């Protein structure tokens, strides 16, 4: 079965609004989670990561929330811009693995920013 999956394939938001992209995972052994952004014709681009000993981590305009109780991960993007339009993937790996080792990716959510 699928260990990591996304609830919504497409999310459309108005420019300037905040967006929330969700992800569910099923592997309790996962302890490292990453959000990637993939623009058309490019490879996945690292956005932000979080380890299971945290429940929130903030970056520039992005926040990742981790709820281990319900095995749920979300990516919040504040004040969306046209350049945020892309497919967003969550990915996980299990304890002891770092970097991009053995990541399990979700299917992706296509974020569309409307003017």
């Amino acid at each position: 079965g699928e260990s990591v999956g996304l609830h919504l394939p497409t999310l459309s938001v108005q420019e300037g609004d905040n967006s929330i992209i969700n992800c569910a995972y099923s592997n309790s052994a996962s302890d490292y989670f990453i959000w990637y952004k993939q623009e058309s014709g490019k490879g996945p681009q690292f956005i932000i990561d979080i380890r299971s000993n945290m429940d929130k981590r903030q970056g520039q305009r992005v926040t990742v929330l981790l709820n281990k109780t319900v095995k749920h991960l979300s990516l919040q993007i504040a004040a969306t811009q046209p350049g945020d339009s892309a497919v967003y993937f969550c990915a996980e790996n299990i304890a002891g693995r770092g970097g991009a080792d053995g990541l399990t990716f979700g299917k992706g959510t296509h974020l569309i920013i409307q003017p």
Partner: protein
Amino acid sequence: EPEVTQTPSHQVTQMGQEVILRCVPISNHLYFYWYRQILGQKVEFLVSFYNNEISEKSEIFDDQFSVERPDGSNFTLKIRSTKLEDSAMYFCASWTSGPSYFGPGTRLLVL
């Protein structure tokens, strides 16, 4: 901004032919990876490579696949006898600490 580069960007090959996909990881990185993404599907892990040997591989990475770091800068993925189902985007990635970096991918089409 450091970047991983991959060549070629596109490759078309006949079924049964060998292909070599090339990657130049970020220069001070020590861990290297290959992933693939079949059109419309998820990105899938193939293999990780560290200290000149495979450290982990998935079920997809069978005997038809091999990886090599022939010199200090290149990291290659060889598919010995391509099958139609090998058609996909192949991404190389590298890491030592902090963010992992993916290359732009090679689109492989097997006819």
